[in-house]
């Protein structure tokens, strides 16, 4: 009898444990910040696409955003940024991470990120993000401590003065579980 119950449980439980669930990026605001002695500039993109696929308790996330979609309010500056970041040659920035499925219930997470940008790949370890979950939607905010040198980008200059190496990227995303 016990054996039958165990087999029945396994039949029910194994597919449940291994079941794939997905996360889809609903809304996003990604903002890079550039510091120059004469300027403080923010470039904003709302066009990121993202998906997370969960399997066996782990979720693989991929977020992709076109380099061209960042808008700093100045087309000249955006074209210059596009040039220095080789945005025409490498048009998509991708961010990959793996998180435990249980992380969705946490208030904060530390994610290991792999970012491909400007033809280079950079790893960021334990980047903290805040999570707020309401229903099936999770609001994630945080800042990726990116630098130009991480991606071998020569700092663009204005009036012969280069911008700072730090280009922190603020992340504000809403994900929905499906």
């Amino acid at each position, binding site marked *: 009898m016990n054996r039958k119950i165990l087999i029945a449980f396994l039949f029910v439980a194994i597919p449940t444990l291994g079941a794939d669930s997905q996360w889809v990026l609903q809304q996003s605001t990604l903002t890079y910040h550039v510091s120059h002695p004469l300027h403080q500039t923010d470039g904003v993109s709302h066009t990121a696409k993202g998906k997370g*696929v969960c399997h066996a308790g782990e979720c693989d996330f991929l977020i992709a955003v076109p380099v061209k979609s960042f808008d700093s309010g100045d087309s000249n500056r955006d074209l210059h940024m596009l040039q*220095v970041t080789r945005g025409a040659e490498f048009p998509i920035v991708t961010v990959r*991470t793996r998180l435990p499925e249980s992380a969705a219930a946490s208030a904060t997470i530390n994610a290991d990120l792999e970012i491909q940008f400007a033809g280079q790949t950079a790893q960021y370890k334990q980047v903290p993000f805040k999570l707020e979950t309401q229903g099936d939607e999770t609001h994630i905010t945080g800042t990726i401590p990116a630098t130009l040198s991480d991606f071998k980008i020569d700092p663009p200059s204005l009036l012969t003065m280069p911008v700072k190496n730090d280009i922190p990227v603020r992340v504000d995303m809403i994900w929905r579980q499906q």
Partner: protein
Amino acid sequence: MLSNLWRRCVSGLLVVSLFGMLAPALIAQMAAKSALTGRVTDASGSAVANATVTATSVETGQTRSATTGPDGTYKLDVAPGNYRVKLEATGFKRVEIPAVTVSGAEIAVLDEKLEGEEQSAVRPKPAQQEDLPNAPSSSSTAPSLSDLGLSPEQTRGNPQEQALLDKRTRMLKIHQRMGLITTIPLIATVVTSLNAGGKSEGTASRDLHVALGALTGDLYAITAYYAIRAPRIPGTKKRGPIKFHEAMAWVHGPGMILTPILGAMAFSQKNNGEKVHGIAQAHGPVAIVTAGAFGAALLSVSVKF
């Protein structure tokens, strides 16, 4: 005495004007002093002599070829830009590298190993978006770019557009530097104008004012050349301070033509012992408006308001 000074002034103007005409070409030549160099070896690391290295400009389609020497090295004098590079040698696979960037006034190094056999091989571009390396999160279930609804067209790089952007930036950098340099004689011209139009009989301050004005005009012409000739990027809508910067060009551009013409008339009248009269009286006000518009254009892209 006066005619001697006038002759000296005119010859000075001619020299400065000639410099102005030749400078863009000279600067362009200086900017174009770059090369692609490297060493071709076989799988064991031994030099491959007589290999043909061909670089084809992505922008212009122009090709340059060189043959490797006994030590396997080659050097191609090429203009800055993006190139497709092909390496061929008897008994080795042909290698094509789709994108090699040569930056301004730099020597790009491209060392290559050739493999045996006669088939050709195309090496993929580094870190091509469709061929992402394994991320820490990669697994059989990890989503791909196509899962996000991104088509290959959206993720594929465009070397031609990148080359256009590179050229645009190179030219605008020179535009920016020349604009900054131009402000120095521009300010000096404005300052020396205080004495140039005075009642004194001496002409030295007036000559200095004319020389500085001519230098300003020539440097301005070079500055304008690099802005006008910088390639436009299709599909770009102008936003932000650049609109004001360009609008100001419609003021200081004509002003930079008109100011020296009016100045020459005023100069002539002064040297004839006459009081500046007629349209020549507008030289000062036009110059001030021109300098003001130039300064405003410079500030509009330099300081955030």
